[in-house]
């Protein structure tokens, strides 16, 4: 057992996430695996819904059925549930594209041969979170007016006047600083943890395969790796769902302030 583990060496974590540049090295447009996969996820999202809405049969079948039921899934479970019927229906297109964009990026984690989720680089979740954050502030100012928006978000009603000394800084930090940060980090850290987890199981399996006692010890990490792959599929869906539902909550909160 010690002899088998002596050969096992975990690579530094940056090795798992940093990819060499393929073309256009040294320019701002340098392309590596992350960029390619992000573009592929965007194209998949566009292609999925363009193909699904091309025929527009009254009774959907086949691919159109799939696209329509995915749209309805987001509409019923996320948009209408959180934002109400009217706003929910208006915001479903945005939320659906966000959901499937993130989902396709996440699911690359378990597809054999690719096995890298672009969302495990902080840049992509951070960009998405910043877009949502700017939309939240802009929509709040648009629907409630600049003063009204800051009044409703920084001075929640129903609080004794003296307590505003305490409540307002807390609200400011939690709404305008922690919110976008945790929104991005939640997706990023989950995918990064998943990627490290799968790598660990794969490396352990490989190390035990080369060891002397492989017949005895190999089944454990192999079964574990297979189970974790299934778990990561669940995580990919769940994180896309949570990112989208939080987007709906943030935007819905800007459109309808608490009274």
């Amino acid at each position, binding site marked *: 057992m010690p002899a088998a583990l002596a050969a096992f060496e975990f690579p530094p*974590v940056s090795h798992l996430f940093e990819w060499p540049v393929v073309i256009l090295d040294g320019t701002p447009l340098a392309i590596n695996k992350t960029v390619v996969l992000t573009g592929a996820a965007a194209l998949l999202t566009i292609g999925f819904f363009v193909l699904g809405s091309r025929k527009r049969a009254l009774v959907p079948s086949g691919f159109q059925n799939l696209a329509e039921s995915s749209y309805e899934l987001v509409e019923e*479970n996320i948009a209408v*549930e*959180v934002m109400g019927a009217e706003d929910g229906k208006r915001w479903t297109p945005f939320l659906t594209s966000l959901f499937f964009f993130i989902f396709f990026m996440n699911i690359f984690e378990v597809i054999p041969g690719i096995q890298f989720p672009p969302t495990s680089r902080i840049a992509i979740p951070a960009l998405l979170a910043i877009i949502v954050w700017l939309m939240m502030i802009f929509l709040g100012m648009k629907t409630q007016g600049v003063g009204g928006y800051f009044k409703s978000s920084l001075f929640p009603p129903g609080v004794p006047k003296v307590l505003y000394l305490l409540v307002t800084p807390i609200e400011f930090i939690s709404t305008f600083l922690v919110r976008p940060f*945790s929104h991005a*980090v*939640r997706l*990023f*850290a*989950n995918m*990064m*943890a998943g990627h490290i987890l799968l790598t660990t199981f794969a490396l352990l399996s490989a190390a035990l395969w080369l060891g002397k006692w492989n017949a005895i010890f190999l089944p454990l990490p192999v079964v574990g790796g297979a189970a974790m792959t299934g778990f990561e599929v669940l995580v990919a869906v*769940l994180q896309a*769902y*949570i990112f989208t*539902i*939080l987007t709906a*909550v943030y935007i819905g909160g800007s459109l309808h302030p608490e009274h």
Partner: protein
Amino acid sequence: MTILTILAEITGDIEVGLKAMGYGLAAIGPGIGIGYLVGNAVQAMARQPEAAGMVRTTMFLGIAFAEALALFGFVLFFL
């Protein structure tokens, strides 16, 4: 601040070990929280199956907020 500066001065392996312990500590609270949260959500869904959809949405929101704390610990482990 003083604790942080002392920690920064301790070199090498101890630092990594402390970071790992920090992550372990950061995982306790959210673990307990999510346990309570999901348990109560299941209880609510069992008592009132027609409200299951609403309870589930709120449950996932709560999980997301509670989980964030553990994930901060995880990210800070690598920083």
